[in-house]
């Protein structure tokens, strides 16, 4: 009866790997938020009218709001299945630090929701007549912003796991905190369209992601412990 506790890094990677494998076996969970994103982005021109000028002007805002909602949609299921099938119990009694496991899960969540959004955003952006340079900045802001959204969202998902009516509550908890990301993400893209400097906005998004990555795993872990009591 020997054997040592596997290292921290092994644990983070293993959790992320397991969730990616699960996503691979159930591709709908990844694709649905993407369709949702594309659909919200389609709704807008239909609702407002096909005026090119208006589309160019509102494109960054619409895409960012749609991305935020799509992220929110995918957050619901983040911890629910682990909570229901007892996996969360097993993670909580493992010798691994819970924040590391939470980080691994968040990482997988970002790779299955944030990253695909970044990758499909150019296609949707082109329908809003966005120039290539602007699309590049859009992808960059989404890349930085969705990291923060995954991390923030994980806290909310951990707080609401196991509650009835958790869905609406999750949005209510996460959306106010997501405002800075939305504001800086969308405004930075508009700035490049008017030819202004975008460095400030990108720096903010990066700094925010760093700040949140240093807080969120601990908050998520604490919330999971409380929710699983």
């Amino acid at each position, binding site marked *: *009866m*020997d*054997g*040592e*506790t*596997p290292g921290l890094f*092994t*644990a983070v*990677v*293993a*959790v992320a*790997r*397991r969730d990616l*494998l*699960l996503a691979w*076996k*159930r591709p709908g969970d990844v694709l649905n938020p993407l369709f949702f994103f594309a659909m919200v982005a389609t709704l807008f021109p239909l609702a407002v009218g096909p005026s090119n000028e208006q589309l160019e002007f509102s494109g960054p805002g619409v895409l960012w709001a749609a991305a935020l909602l799509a992220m929110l949609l995918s957050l619901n299921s983040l911890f629910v*299945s682990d909570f*229901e*099938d*007892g*996996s969360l*119990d*097993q*993670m*909580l*009694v*493992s*010798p*691994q*630090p819970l924040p590391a496991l939470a980080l691994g899960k968040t990482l997988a969540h970002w790779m299955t929701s944030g990253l695909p959004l970044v990758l499909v955003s150019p296609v949707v952006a082109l329908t809003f007549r966005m120039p290539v340079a602007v699309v590049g900045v859009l992808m960059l802001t989404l890349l930085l912003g969705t990291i923060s959204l995954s991390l923030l969202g994980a806290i909310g998902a951990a707080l609401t796991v196991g509650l009835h009516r958790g869905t609406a509550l999750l949005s209510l908890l996460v959306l106010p905190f997501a405002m800075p990301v939305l504001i800086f993400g969308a405004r930075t893209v508009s700035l490049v369209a008017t030819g202004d400097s975008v460095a400030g906005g990108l720096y903010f998004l990066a700094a925010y992601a760093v700040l949140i990555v240093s807080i969120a795993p601990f908050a998520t872990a604490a919330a999971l*412990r409380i929710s*699983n*009591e």
Partner: protein
Amino acid sequence: MTAQLSGHDLTLFRGERCLFRGVEFALNPGEMLLLEGLNGSGKTSLMRAIAGLLEFETGEIRWHGEPTRVQRQAFHDSLVWMAHRVGFKADLTLTENLDFEAALRPSASADRDEVFRRLGLSRLKRLPLRSLSAGQQRRVALARMLLSAATLWLMDEPVTNLDRDGRRLVAALVQEHLVRGGMCIMAAHQDVQIEATVHRVLLQ
């Protein structure tokens, strides 16, 4: 001499209901602790609280004489828990699930194929767990225990859904574990036939 694992003055509340009060126990290598009581008497809650998932209102669990809450990692290093729910992913195969398990906690040197053969899981290891029966899922949970290096086994109703062979198998596995110097805390309706020092906690 202090016991390797002991509980002192344990009181637990669920919401506003008091499940039990002033529970004491002590457990040493090779011994077993049987939690008895009717359904809803708090056996599962006591087990969850021992594992550190619930907070006691009063009292504490000590591992080698030290409170577990100040040495969570060391305690969890030596603990494996067979809960009601298997705690594996239904969409993944047995092998994939156990690979993940191996990244979480210390593994025993036991050979995986050997364990599968013993539990009668050899043919099933490439199937998603979803397609296994309830009894087979219990055996899968047993596989987790046998493949971990933990000395303390927590077993919550381990023989539910098992046929007579399965029940005998559980008894044999626990017996071997105790002989090797392991410990076991079990919550069970049915009496499990085990030759060892068995302590009992009766929850009203």
